[in-house]
């Protein structure tokens, strides 16, 4: 979850997810659309790919990006992470209550 968290914490990466939600794009297309260097865009794509939010495939000399196996855009990814966060938090609350049982409460 931390990886996905880190992946969508950046506004450019959220923009990339929104863009890919409308159709596939090459890294160089994305770089020019987001007005950044190819190297910079590659780094963002690597982070998104590491979180499973984007998948890439090399066709000829062009690396094409599309939404990853999760098929989630930034908003849905955020909702999902939020939900996991709430759920995991309740887990920890349960453990905390267990651990502090009988304490000066």
């Amino acid at each position, binding site marked *: 979850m931390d990886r996905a968290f880190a992946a969508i*914490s950046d506004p450019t990466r959220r923009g990339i997810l929104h863009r890919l939600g409308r159709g596939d794009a090459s890294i160089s297309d994305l770089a020019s659309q987001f007005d950044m260097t190819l190297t910079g865009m590659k780094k963002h794509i690597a982070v998104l790919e590491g979180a499973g939010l984007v998948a890439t495939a090399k066709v000829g000399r062009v690396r094409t990006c599309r939404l990853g196996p999760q098929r*989630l855009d930034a908003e849905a990814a955020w909702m999902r992470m939020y939900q996991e966060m709430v759920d995991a938090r*309740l887990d920890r609350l349960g453990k905390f209550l267990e651990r502090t*049982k009988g304490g000066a409460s």
Partner: protein
Amino acid sequence: MSAATKSANKSTVSKPSDREIRIERTFDAPRDRVWRAFTDPKLLAQWWGRGNKLVIEKFELERGGHWRFVEHGPEGKHGFEGRFREVTPKDRIVQTFEWDGMPAYVIIETLELTDLGDGRTKVVTLSLFHTTEERDGMLESGMEEGLNQSYEALDRLLATME
């Protein structure tokens, strides 16, 4: 005796509407203790932050009061904040929730505690996601298909969760 009732308590996740997620769970603890775990900053800091250090910068537990938590994880800091909209002791808290990483995605969270009368407490969190305006703005910008796909993915995800 508590060993026998050792909790296999699990969350129940449901979607009461297009914009809400409801998570219900029962805890083997009386309501007073659960309330304190949610409202005493010293206790909150011990469980809220995913095992990371949690700094509670603000916690003004009253209507209109501001709260702000900063979680110090291995991959950096994450700030969360919001305002309290309703505070009814031992019963109910309504607050806004915003993560620094997704500014303007404000979630309205309702926390409800119910005393089950046998030393256990039912905790229900209801999360209401972003405004209709934001949603409609998204649709106008051609996001409909992407959103539908996302919601389908979310549906599948929710279906796999107990």
